[in-house]
């Protein structure tokens, strides 16, 4: 059964309208992108809630609705376990990794490797990350093509091409700014639609008690059994998702790192992470799995006969009226597009920052790099499209699983050891990346898999290997790194200050260009005016009477933002406390006013950046 059999022309019209609205939205916000900082990091100006919702759209990947609804149908609420094991990474993310990359102004993961370990490590990390990202672009476009085939009957490659063109259009126009704003819409859309399908299903069945009673008992556990079944055991899911994939998502996923760097401050990153992981991720788990649970309950109730892989779409089609089902199709498209746009922008950032700028043309004007970034976005999309026929040869799920398992553990372990352990050496990082990568790659092929993986498979058989390979990869990569570290000479701490734990304050000092003032201060509200006498765009004239309340001193970093919250930080600017203003308005140079998209007299607030 295809979605095409289930949808009406009205549904298709709703979905196409959604497509057009999202693209229009992305193109509109393209006007906020005039520098590479805007194109890659959204001008580093966004509020926490914008990034939290957009991150959810990225988290809910192209395959999520199909994969997790199928798991929910087959195994019950344990399908959510992948979304509930991220919280434990929060301290490492917020207290170690984020302050380092944010305050060191690190533009890409390979750049961190060069600054921490030297150029060879950067090259190795770049190869891994580009393979990871470009492979993901191909997989996403294949999924998009497959979805459009089942909805509209188009050939897969044609559907992938149309979707690719659509996404590339707004990524080309606005880069990260357009990606964030479209993903904000897409994140809200897919959460609302997914939760609505679940709640409509529960209401149809007669309430939560009836829904719960209809699920088989084995479907009501939050975790699957520790080491059974082979294809969905707790330990397999935990090793792959809870350790390797979540580690990769917060540490090495260039798209997510760029999303963090688009936040206006590290303080906002804290708020965003809490809401993202503690509120939105559990909601997203219900969103992507709920259709499968409802399909199972409907089947147990004798109302629907359904296959696991079609659980979400068939349950939604059964429950929704024509037109409303169109929004379900739109949510599927939202999940697909919001991942693809992030990946394309991320590849562009890695290419420009790690290949073009250091090796092809250094010290060019920013507008030149912006042009290269846009061309790279187009090229990445085209290359990803070329991969679609290759990825068509295997199932989406296994291709994704194998690829992820092969490339992520070595790089996650190298970053983890690199930030947590100052003694970890450049040679050890290379051993982790290259040696770990080779050992994981070897384990992908028989008979090596049967030799290497059983000790990590907790008594399970070969069907568990694609999950437990992640644990094997983390262990062998980590052991290689630790052993080589003890036989090689570490870098002096002065050489890696600001790049390892224990030196985050050094990174803050470097970011500010002076001693850090962490005294808590108040947010102040006022109006902004252009002051042509201020020649330095980074300086902001603040009424002298405000400084004690703000606990700010001359030279402190501050953030000025439009008071209308719904702009989400789009109209804002960073600067330093400059000479005091003569009246009770904030004074900005003409350049800063343009950068912040302010007009004279606009109501704004100002706060210390940290």
């Amino acid at each position, binding site marked *: 059964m295809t979605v095409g059999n289930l949808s009406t022309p009205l549904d298709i019209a709703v979905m196409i309208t959604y497509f057009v609205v999202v693209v229009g939205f992305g193109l509109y916000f393209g006007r906020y992108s005039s520098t590479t900082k805007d194109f890659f990091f959204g001008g580093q100006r966004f509020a926490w809630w914008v990034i939290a919702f957009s991150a959810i759209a990225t988290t809910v990947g192209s395959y999520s609705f199909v994969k997790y609804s199928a798991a929910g149908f087959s195994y019950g*609420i344990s399908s959510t*376990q992948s979304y*509930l*094991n991220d*919280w*434990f*990474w*929060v*301290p*490492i*993310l*917020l*207290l*170690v990794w984020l*302050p380092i990359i944010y305050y060191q102004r690190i533009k890409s993961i390979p750049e961190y490797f060069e600054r921490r370990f030297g150029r060879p490590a950067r090259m190795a990390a770049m190869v891994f990350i580009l393979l990871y990202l470009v492979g993901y672009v191909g997989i996403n476009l294949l999924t998009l093509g497959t979805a459009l085939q089942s909805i509209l009957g188009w050939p897969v490659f044609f559907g992938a091409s149309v979707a690719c063109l659509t996404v590339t259009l707004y990524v080309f126009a606005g880069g990260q700014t357009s990606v964030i704003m479209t993903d904000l819409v897409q994140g809200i859309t897919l959460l609302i639609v997914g939760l609505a399908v679940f709640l409509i299903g529960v209401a149809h069945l007669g309430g939560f*008690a*009836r829904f*719960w*009673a*209809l699920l*088989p*008992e084995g479907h*009501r*556990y*939050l*975790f*699957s*059994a*520790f080491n059974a079944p082979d294809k969905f055991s*707790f*330990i397999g899911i*935990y090793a792959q998702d*809870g*350790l390797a994939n979540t580690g990769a998502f917060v540490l090495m996923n260039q798209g997510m790192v760029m999303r963090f760097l688009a936040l206006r401050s590290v*303080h906002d990153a*804290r708020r965003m992470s*809490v809401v993202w*992981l*503690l509120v939105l991720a559990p909601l997203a788990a219900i969103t992507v799995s709920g259709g499968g649970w409802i399909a199972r309950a409907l089947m*147990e*109730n004798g109302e629907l006969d359904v296959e696991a892989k079609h659980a979400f779409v068939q349950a939604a089609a059964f429950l929704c009226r024509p037109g409303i089902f169109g929004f379900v199709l739109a949510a599927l498209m939202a999940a697909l597009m919001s991942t693809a746009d992030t990946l394309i922008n991320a590849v562009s950032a890695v290419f420009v920052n790690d290949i073009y700028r250091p090796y092809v043309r250094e010290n060019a004007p920013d507008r030149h790099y912006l042009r290269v970034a846009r061309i790279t976005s187009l090229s990445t999309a085209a290359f990803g499209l070329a991969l679609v026929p290759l990825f068509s040869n295997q199932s989406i799920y296994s291709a994704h699983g194998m690829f992820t398992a092969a490339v992520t553990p070595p790089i996650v372990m190298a970053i983890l050891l690199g*930030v*947590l352990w100052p003694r970890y050496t450049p040679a050890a990082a290379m051993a982790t990346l290259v040696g770990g990568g080779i050992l994981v790659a070897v384990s992908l092929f028989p008979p090596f898999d049967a030799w290497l993986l059983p000790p990590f498979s907790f008594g399970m058989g070969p069907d568990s290997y694609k999950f437990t390979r992640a644990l094997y990869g983390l262990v062998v990569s980590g052991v290689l790194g630790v052993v080589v570290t003890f036989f090689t000479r570490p870098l002096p701490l002065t050489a890696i200050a600001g790049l390892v*734990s*224990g*030196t*985050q*304050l*050094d990174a*803050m000092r470097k970011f500010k260009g002076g001693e850090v003032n*962490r005294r*808590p201060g108040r947010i102040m509200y006022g109006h902004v005016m252009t002051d042509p006498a201020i020649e330095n765009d980074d300086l902001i004239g603040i009424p002298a009477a405000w400084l004690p309340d703000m606990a700010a001193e001359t030279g402190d970093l501050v953030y000025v933002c439009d008071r209308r919250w719904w702009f989400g930080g789009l109209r804002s600017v960073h600067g330093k406390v400059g000479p005091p203003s003569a009246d009770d308005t904030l004074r900005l140079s003409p350049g800063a006013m343009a950068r912040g998209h302010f007009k004279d007299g606009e109501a704004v607030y100002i706060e210390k950046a940290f």
Partner: protein
Amino acid sequence: MEWARAWPIVCQFGVGSVLCAIGLAAGARGGYFDLKLKADRRLLGIVAVGFIGLLILSCLFTFWLPQLPAGNTP
């Protein structure tokens, strides 16, 4: 009650507590994570609340709710 069902909780929250401890210790080393600051105390509280909340949720959906309704029939 299947006590073998407790192993995933032990594993997830055991490894999770190690990850949290590593992050907090690495944040505190060098003074970046400073409990004298209100924002950092609040963050520590949120991390703890999140951890305990997820633990309670996991226990509820492992030891109690799966057995409801008794008899396992609609």
